[in-house]
Structures are given as structure tokens and as C-alpha cells.
């Protein structure tokens, strides 16, 4: 449906030489996919979205929707102007025009359409339908400045879908809402997207949003896509230390790969302890790997007890700190001078002397190329 190939757009900053933008981004989306670009601020995700919308002109690459090229930086250069791309977009600031009513805002895409003239009745009907979809039926005559943040967001969404675009672009639409409203809108957005089945590209820096909403996630760092995959892939099978650390909390241990086969392998960590891991991606340099262990994948048992499940990895350690977080507890454990974080249920008993064993399954332990940075 949407195909992006080798998309490149670099911003040179003449004063401090920091270049932003995106390099060589490629991905293809099936119709109806909810696709999220996730990354820290300034990583290039918004630039990519704006290139798709036509608000930026890429330096190079191809963008096409349903086989129709919107941009082609190759031989015969194609660049469809933004107003002819017929996409829907929700901006971070919502960009609700303050001099118009709700209905005028939502009707705007229909009134400026070049290839088709809508009658007044058609427009009214389409606006009513779009407002009903976002649960704002009856708000037509409300002046835009008199809307709450959540309502503005819904109006922006209604405006983005009123002309039934094939592609919906969302630029951090939830980041301006307070926490409770954000949760509410998140589930609503997901419901709405699956109901109208529109291919959606979503930009966020919030990993929990990305995991909750997406069919596909692209994790982006410093202008480069680091991994594309389903939320489960991204979370459980990261292919590099950046993704492992950016999506969810994790412990990264430096180690040396001593043998791998069938996607599994053994890694020496913490001064020679051997643990068994998944090896999801090719590792060029066996002497420099990182092992990712999620805090919630580790069980703590008193040192005295023998390991209960054969096959689990086991490392001895000493509890040095406990932080109560309500439903869970974060426990700091030092093993061979390295501090690991472990999440446990709030009621798990810890031995008085602090001597524990850390148990974690090889399926939840991932070896990644590259040193811990």
C-alpha cells in the first residue's frame, strides 16, 4: 500500500554541525496496517512522516501509495505537491483553525477539493458522519477556541478522515494530553483505526503507545531505522542494544559469544559465567556482544534454595536496594560488581542476608551485537 524506499532527508545545521533528518529509510505497509515510527526526539521520525505528507521534500528515495509515486528522487523526478496527495493528517498541535467552527474545520478538506464539487448537503452529511465517528456529534457550531484538548484532538481526527483518505498520518497526537486522557484516547484511536481500516502511520516517542497501538513498529535512532517488526518482536527479540534499551527497561551485560546454532548460543558474562541466550541476528564479532535481560523476566530465589527449573540461567547476586512501586518492586542486585535491576511482585520475600540467585529463561535472554555503550 505505502512503499517507502531509501528515503533520505538531511538537515545540516550550520552553527553546531549536528545534522538531523533520516537516512535510507525503507519500509512497505500492507493495507490497513497501523505502523508506528518510534524513537527519541530528533531521531528523524517526524521528518519521515512530513516527507510522506509532502511537507518536506526528500533529498532522495521513493514514496508511493498504491503504486502511484508521490515522490521519486530518481531520473525523472516526481514530487506531487502536498495538496494533491490526498492524505489525512493529525498534527502534534492539532492545528485546529481558531477562526472557524468545528464544522468549518472538519468540512475544510471537502471545500478545497479540486477534482470534485460537493453540495452543501453532502458536506453536512460527511461532517456529521466524521464527527459521529469521533464521538463529537452535535458539536458542529462550537467555535474552535472553545474546545478542550481532548475535543480538539477529536476534531483534528475528524478533519483527517472526513475526505476518506487512503493514508492517515498521525504526528504525536497524544503527547499534548494529560495522562488519563492519553490512555483513553489511545484505546479509542486503536478502536477507530480498526473500524475504518485505514492504513495509518503514527509517530511517537512513547514506547508504551507504540506497543499498545501498532501492527508494525519501526524503531529509529539518529536518522536510521534500527529495527522493524511486530510489537512482540521488538520487545522480546530486539536485534541491537539500542532497541532493547529504548523499548522497555532492560539490563545489558557485556559478554563474549562462545558458540551459536539454530538461533541459540552461549555467552560468557560477568567474568566467565556462561548463560544461554537467543541469538536473533547475525553477530559479526563474537568477542563483543551485549546480553539483554528484562527486569521482569528474572526471578529472585534465596541462595540456599536449589534452582527449581532445569535449563534456566542462574547467576548469584546480592540485594543492595529495594524501591517500592505499588504493584511491583524494583530490586537492585549486584553480581560481580555489576548492578542488575529486577522487577518482582510486591509481596515476594527476600532473604535477610540479601544473598540471592537470579533465574531467567534462555527464551527471555537475548544476545545482541555490539558492546554495551
Amino acid at each position: 500500500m505505502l512503499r517507502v524506499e531509501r528515503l533520505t532527508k538531511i538537515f545540516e545545521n550550520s552553527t553546531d554541525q549536528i545534522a538531523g533528518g533520516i537516512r535510507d529509510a525503507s519500509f512497505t505497509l500492507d493495507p490497513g496496517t497501523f505502523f508506528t515510527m518510534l524513537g527519541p526526539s530528533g531521531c528523524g521520525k517526524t521528518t519521515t512522516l512530513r516527507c510522506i505528507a509532502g511537507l518536506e521534500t526528500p533529498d532522495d528515495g521513493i514514496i508511493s501509495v498504491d503504486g502511484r509515486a508521490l515522490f521519486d528522487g530518481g531520473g525523472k523526478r516526481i514530487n506531487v505537491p502536498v495538496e494533491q496527495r490526498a492524505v489525512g493528517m493529525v498534527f502534534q498541535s492539532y492545528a485546529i483553525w481558531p477562526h472557524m467552527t468545528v464544522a468549518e474545520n472538519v468540512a475544510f478538506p471537502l471545500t478545497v477539493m479540486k477534482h470534485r464539487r460537493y453540495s452543501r448537503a453532502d458536506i453536512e452529511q460527511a461532517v456529521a458522519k466524521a464527527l459521529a465517528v469521533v464521538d463529537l456529534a452535535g458539536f458542529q457550531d462550537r467555535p474552535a477556541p472553545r474546545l478542550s484538548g481532548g475535543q480538539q484532538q477529536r476534531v483534528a481526527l475528524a478533519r483527517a478522515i472526513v475526505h476518506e483518505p487512503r493514508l492517515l498520518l498521525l504526528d504525536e497526537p497524544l503527547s499534548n494530553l494529560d495522562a488519563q486522557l492519553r490512555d483513553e484516547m489511545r484505546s479509542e484511536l486503536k478502536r477507530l483505526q480498526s473500524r475504518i481500516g485505514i492504513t495509518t502511520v503514527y509517530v511517537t516517542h512513547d514506547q508504551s503507545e507504540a506497543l499498545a497501538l501498532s501492527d508494525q513498529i519501526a524503531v529509529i535512532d539518529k536518522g536510521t531505522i534500527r529495527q522493524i517488526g511486530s510489537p512482540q518482536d521488538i520487545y522480546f527479540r530486539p536485534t541491537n542494544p539500542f532497541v532493547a534499551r529504548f523499548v522497555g527497561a532492560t539490563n545489558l551485560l557485556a559478554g563474549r559469544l562462545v558458540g551459536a546454532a539454530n538461533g541459540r548460543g552461549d555467552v560468557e558474562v560477568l567474568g566467565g559465567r556462561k548463560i544461554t541466550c537467543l541469538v536473533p541476528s547475525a553477530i559479526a564479532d563474537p568477542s563483543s556482544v551485549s546480553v539483554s535481560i528484562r527486569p521482569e523476566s528474572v526471578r529472585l530465589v534465596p541462595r540456599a534454595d536449589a534452582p527449581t527449573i532445569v535449563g534456566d540461567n542462574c547467576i548469584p547476586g546480592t540485594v543492595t536496594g529495594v524501591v517500592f512501586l505499588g504493584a511491583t518492586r524494583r530490586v537492585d542486585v549486584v553480581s560481580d560488581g555489576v548492578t542488575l535491576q529486577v522487577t518482582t511482585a510486591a509481596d515476594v520475600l527476600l532473604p535477610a542476608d540479601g544473598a540471592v540467585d537470579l533465574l531467567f529463561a534462555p527464551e527471555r535472554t537475548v544476545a545482541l551485537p555490539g558492546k554495551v555503550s
Partner: protein
Amino acid sequence: MTASFDVARIDTAAERSAAAPRRSLLSAWQTAILSALLIVILSALVIPPFLLLVQGSLTVAGPTPSTSTFGLTNFEAVLSGRHIVTTTINSLVFAAASAALALLLGWATAWIVERTNTPLKPLAYLTAIISLGTPYILYVTAWLLFFGKAGPVNHLYRTLTGNIDVLINIYSMAGMVLVEGFLWSPLAFLLVSATLRNANPELEEAARVHGAGVWATIRRVTMRLSLPSIMALAMLVFIRAVEAFEVPALVGLPGRISVLTTDIYINMVARAPPDIGGASALSVLMLLLVFVLLYVYGRLSRHAERFATITGKGFRPRPFDLGRLRYVAAGILIFNFILLLLVPMLMLVWVSLLPFFQPVSAAALKLVSLSNYRTVLESGQLELMLNTLMVAVATATIAVGLTFVAGWLAVRRAPCGWIVDRLATIPLVFPGLILGIAVMQLFLAVPIPIYGTLGILVWAFVINYLPYGMRYSASGMLQIHRELEEAAAVCGATPMTRLRRIVAPLLAPALLAGWLFIFLMSARALSLPILLSGPRSQLMAVAMFDLWGNGQGTELAALGLMWSMLMTMIALVFYVVARRSAGGALGRA
């Protein structure tokens, strides 16, 4: 409010928005056509005056026009002798001293009004607003009458001491500085108070929280933070005073103190035939001076903006509690009000009621009548008012229309938008008098018959006020979140549709403020039209200048008072609009 008045800037909208990432939203052909159109129009307006001035300065007049030659003789004539040195020094001393005086008065008033709990604050605003509507020439004549030989000050001095000498000789450098400083202090007040309003109050509060007292906070935080912007403002007033014409002509010429502008004026009017070559040569030199000064100002004010943190939260800082001292501060406000508004106005009212000028006395009361007002209303001054209004309306409309599109192209970085920006900003280097000479030469040279009509005035005024319009339009544009426009683009709106349906309505308050400001400035301008006004194209300020020159001070007072009353009402509307549009949260994220 910074946007409203701080117009003498040589930096460009593009530089101002340099913090924004380099993005060109406007890439379609419609924008390219608009850019090209604007560049053509603005070039046609802005560039010829420069060329004509340079040509005029290099043309050496012969006995007949056909024997004219090119050469540097005019420059040699201007630069030889000690006169140019004296004049330049006079100009600089006059400008520096009056800028200092204006800023001192303006800063003190602004600080009291914006930052303390002093009562009677509206007095300061009243003074400022009325001064916006009143032609400077009227103020100058009022103070001349007040401080003059037969004015109340010297009259009282003679009565009390029996001396036949005068206490104050207003026709001196000190007198010029005094009057010019008074003239500029209301505007300095508005500019400084805008700066103070924009300052981040948390910086002061942080000082208080960490143990600084009121005075330590003012001295070590407030003053230090506002120093760069005060420096910039000082430079601005200095430049305007270098270009000033009213005070040098009315106070300096009778006192035989010449400055650059009056020298140029003398070359044009006191010689027969006018020494266009000499005036042009002097004008070119003065343009260079102003250009350098504006450059320095641009650097200063960019520096100043580093500290101007507009929080956008819309909350007012907690004013300093001055305790008992606030009555002293209120006294300063009252003094300011009396000095800058009440004295000149009462002086004018008194004079306007007399058949000929008389010192204020009980004996003169018998002569009081409204006959001056009757004369003014009957003597065809209505046409004068109509002329002025027509020129002001046309100028404001054309200038705002052009700069609306120009500001949009510049701020949104259209292709060649920076050229549009430069072109609309360049006329800042023209003092009004010099622009008048340039436009006069232009229409003597080209066969378009608008010389001596209102048309040539509008032409010159539009050039003169383009930068002002640009300032309003561009700073208004910067307040409109670019996503508002991008949203329309994504919805399928072409650049023209976006301009019409999104930008124009959102920019309307800023444009209205700009329109009113340009209207007010055009309605009271003197130095620009003084050489361009013909018998059939008289403007109010020029007519007042002539009345004063003819010794018809009483009629001038009556006419001026009625006119200022009308203009003050428009100034009031302007003030309300400007405040609202500058604070405009409209479209801000």
C-alpha cells in the same frame, strides 16, 4: 507591542525565524509567481529613489540643463570647509542628548507603570496615546510658545525678578534637545514597557526567593536583563533623532544651529534655483551614516532578544510593592503627564482662543474668543483634512496589502522570499526628507504626470512605510503556528487558498494594527511631504508648518487641536488593537 513600534530594524524576517528549521512549505508555482510579482513591484518602488539620488549627487549643474556634467564636484563642495564638520557634530550631539533624555523619561515611566503598584498608571498611557495621534509639529510649536521669549516661563521669570533678560533661551542646542527628548519620551515609554512586559518574571522571582531584596533584584537582575534592549532602544531613538526634521527646522534654524537634515532642506528651499546636486550629495552621505547606524542597531537588538523570554503563559508578574515610595512614583507620573501632555495642550488651547499671541494674563482674558476656530473651519481647511485622510488611507492600505503577502513569503521561506524581505526593509535607511528629494527627482525625470498631486505623496509614503508594514506582517506571521497552514495544505488547499482562508483571517488583527499605525504616521508626517506637497496637494502637517512660518500661530493652534482630537480617537483604536494582536494567543500552540 514590541512589534508595534520597533520598526527600525535592518535584520530580516528570515533571520528572525532562523531558529525554525529550514523548511520550504511553499514550493508550488503559485508561490513562485507571487514572489516574482512582489519582487517586481517592490523593486519598482524601492530602487529608483536610490538611483536618482546618486545620479543627482553626481550631476554638476551647468547654466542650462543641457550643459550639466557628471563629476564629484557636489561632494567636494559639501565636504570642503568646516561647515560639514560643525553640522555633523551638531547632528550627533543633538541626537545623542535627546535620545538619552527621551529614554530616561521613558524608562522611568515604563518601569513605574509595568513593575510597581503605583496608582495613576493610566496617565502614562493617556500621554502616550495622544502623542501618537498628534503631529510633532504641533507639539514643537506648543513648547516653543511655552518656553519662548513671551511664553509663560520667561514671562513669569521677568515678572518675578524684574529682569528684562530671559530665563530659558529655547532657540539653542539645549532647547532643541529638550523639545526632541520630550517628543520621543512617550514612544520610548511604549517601547520600554513592551520590553518589560516580555521579560520573564520568574527570573526576578528567583532572585527574590534566593534572598535578594527589592533594590538588589532591580539592580542585579532587572536592570542587567533589560540593559541590552535599552541599549537597542537608545540606538533606535538616536537614529530617529539624527533624521529628525521638525525640531531642527523650527528650533534650530531660528537659533542658527544647523544639523544635517536642515542643511539639506536649506539647499532645496533657500536657494533659487534649488541646489539639487548639493542636497543630493549631502543626502547620499547621510544615507551612509544612517545605514551604518541601523546596522549597529540590528546587531544590538538581536543581542537584546536573547533575554526577551516571552513565556506565553499570559500571566503578569507580581508588581514590586514600593510602600510609601509609591506616592513619589505617582508624583513622577503626574509630573510626566503635566509636562508632556497638559502643558502643551493647555498652551495650545490658550493660544487658539486669542486673536494674536499674548502672554497668559488676566488682561488677555478679555480677548478670548472662538474666532480662530471659525476662521479655520471657514477657510477651506476641510480640503486639507480630506487630502491628509485620503493620503493616509491610501498609504496604509497599499503598504499593508503589499507587506501582507511579502511577510508571508518571507516568514514561510518561499523561493526568493529573502529578496522580498530585503526589498521591503531597505527604505528604513531613508530619512523622510531625503526620500522626498529622491521621489521628487524621480517624477521630474520620468514622464508620469503625478508631480504636484496627491499621487506622488502616496507613492513616497508607501515606500517610506513598507518596513513598518513588514514588521507588523512578519511578526504577526511568526505567531501563527505553521502547522495551521500545513494542516490546510494536507487537506488539499493550494497556496492561494491557504493565504485567503487561513493566513488572512489569522493575521487580520496584526494587519489592522499595522494599518492604523501607518495611517497615524502618514497623517502626521512632515519631513517627507514638505518638499512634495504642491498648492493643490497640501497636507495637514505641511499646512501647520506654513502657518507657523507665516506667524499664524493662533490659527495653527485651533486647527491642530481639532485635528489631534480626531487623530487621538484613531490612536486609541490603534492602541487597543495593537495590544490585543500582540498578546494574541491566536493560533499559538
